[in-house]
């Protein structure tokens, strides 16, 4: 028979697996730099493991994890003070609040995006996915698709617009059904 601590470990693993992507997305909205968001996610995951005994089974894990993430972002603000993309506290607070009301829509947008990616032409798809691979940047995406770096910036701007509009359209079609 597994002990209760084993069950808790399994529960933690299960919850982490389920919510890791959404948690990253939440952090990313508060910390627009992807690598900084990655670091905060790591810090947050660590604290979640350490504090998991305080989490009450049956309550909302995602909200609990977001609270930890929020305080991690606040604590890291000094570290990011030199970053060009850090928001002030007021903006961060209103974003966090707004985010809390959009969970369901954001999940649907995530899945709709997979369909929209399929609709892109091959070169654009390769360009945008290369750009977003871990450790890759615009220069890497430009090289992968035989474009200049300047051309890649313009292309990525266009592709993001196309994808955004496509996702919005997909959702409106779903809702119309």
């Amino acid at each position, binding site marked *: 028979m*597994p*002990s209760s*601590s*084993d069950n808790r*470990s*399994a529960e*933690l*693993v*299960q919850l*982490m*697996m*389920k919510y890791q*992507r959404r948690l*990253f*997305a939440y952090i*990313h*909205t508060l910390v*627009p*730099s*992807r690598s900084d*968001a990655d670091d905060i996610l*790591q810090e947050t*995951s*660590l604290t979640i*493991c350490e504090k998991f005994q305080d989490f009450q089974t049956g309550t909302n894990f995602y909200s609990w994890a977001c609270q930890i993430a929020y305080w991690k972002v606040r604590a890291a603000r000094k570290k990011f003070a030199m970053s*060009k*993309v850090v*928001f002030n506290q*007021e*903006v961060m607070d*209103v*974003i966090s609040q*707004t*985010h809390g009301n*959009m969970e369901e*829509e*954001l*999940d*649907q*947008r*995530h*899945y709709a*995006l997979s369909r929209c*990616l399929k609709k892109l032409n*091959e070169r654009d*798809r*390769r360009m*945008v*996915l*290369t*750009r*977003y*691979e*871990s450790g890759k940047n615009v220069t890497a995406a430009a090289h*992968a698709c035989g474009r200049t770096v300047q051309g890649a910036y313009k292309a*990525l*701007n266009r592709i993001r617009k196309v*994808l*955004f509009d496509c*996702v919005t359209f997909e959702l409106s079609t779903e809702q119309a059904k």
Partner: protein
Amino acid sequence: MKLSDNEIIELHDLFDGLVENNLSIKEKERLQYLLENSEEARHFYIRFIEMSASLKYYADELLAGDEEHQVSKFPIAGKVVGFASPILAAAAIFAVGFYIFFSFDSETPLADYTALSDNEIVFEPEKVITTDDTVAVLTKSVGVEWSKDTGFRPQLGTTLELSRLQITKGLVQLEFLQGSTVILEGPVDFQILNSNEGKLSTGKLRATVPQVARGFTVNLPKGRLIDLGTEFGLNVHLGGSTEIFVYKGNVLYRGQNDSDEEVTREISGGEALFVDPLGYANWVEMPSEPFLGTADLAYRSKEESQVRHAAWLELSKELSQNANTSLYYSFDNQSSWTRVLQNQAGPQKSHLNGAIIGCKWSEGRWPGKGALSFERQNDRVRLNFHEKLPTVTLCSWIKIDKLQDNISPILCSNNATSGSASWYVNGKGQVVLEVFRGSIKDTYQSAVAFRKERLGKWMHVVTTYDLGSKRVSHFVNGRPFSHEQIKGSTPISFANSQLGHFGKNSSLSKDIVLHGSVDEFVVLNTASPESDIRRMYEIGCPYEMANSLGPKLP
């Protein structure tokens, strides 16, 4: 505040600048103003950034080669499929519902995109740290058997100084620092004279010489061949005769015959020259049999790699089904987004799943085989292997990139209670098993196993702890390395432990992370005999056995 069309366009550009980190201070202030004062702008912003996060997710998933993505609560009729893979089935314990089949048509060019990351096992010369004396790098090898007479048996990725390569069988590819690529086919005797020159005494050679390396020279028994920017093949027979085949461009042959006459020939693409043992040159037909080229070598190299990988998959299956396997992380078939390391052994598999914190998924011993890289301070895999074992075999394939001053952790318990154990490589490169016996810490360490030349290479490390025979044994790359008498009679445990990380709550006062990768980890509840360990190594070794069993092996 309702957004105008112009503001929506403006916001799009601001978000774009934001994710690319190239907003000016003024633009940032404008963005902050809009976000603070317009709920619509905030909704727009959150949707946009979430799309960015999702793109990262899909990009990493594709990179991992996965075609199936876990989806819950998303009702898309006709696109929802059940899952059959046993690996995914394990994950299904946690998942709420279904998997969506997320695949781009295999015939669409995205398949090419995936192929781009599907590299064969090669070493890229530009990534190899070279010293001033380095003149070439051994970048590929297939089926190599080194001559019995030679003590120099460089491994894949080895940087080469002026040296002599004697091979009885197989192929190697050398990349000279000046730019030429040379493939040697055994039996061959070749000397590297400098970064743009070699000497072929016997055997076959094929060279590709880019313009930048023009002037690449091969010394032959009766002369020398000077490249003028080309591709050519050479075959020096045991008796001293030489065949020269030029595929592209021009080469210049200069030699001396038995009558002390100078022999000079310029050979162009499609022409072949035969120089007899006395140094006389004659034009001959190009052979119909193609000389071995880079593409053939790449194919054979990849083929061999696939054969090795397939053999390991069989072993992996065997390990996961073995009744004596208590814990098994194969690191295979896991997507790059997954933060759960799947245990593949034992009746209650999921209880021993590990929680991945920080570490990144990377490529393991073969293309397509997963591994976890540990790099940053907090990188670790948490697990709770509470079973107390009087007899245990710990096995792992690890690649250490940098030896820490004190410890490169493999699996370390955070507890300091009796029986709590830690397994690591210390700063000297010795494999260490550390076991608490009451308040005493018993340390069992091998001789030095991880020398400088072994860093950055996959190594098989095994330690057995057997209270029955009262012995701890360390094995490195399939060979016994040291044996020690066990003090006391404490069964060992890895409760509250971490893979690739030494916690500050353990016997040390600070966190230490492994600087390297792990791509297989097994715990058996028996002491495996040497023959079994040797077999695990031989099947799992990604390199040429002849290379890795050179005389320097510990």
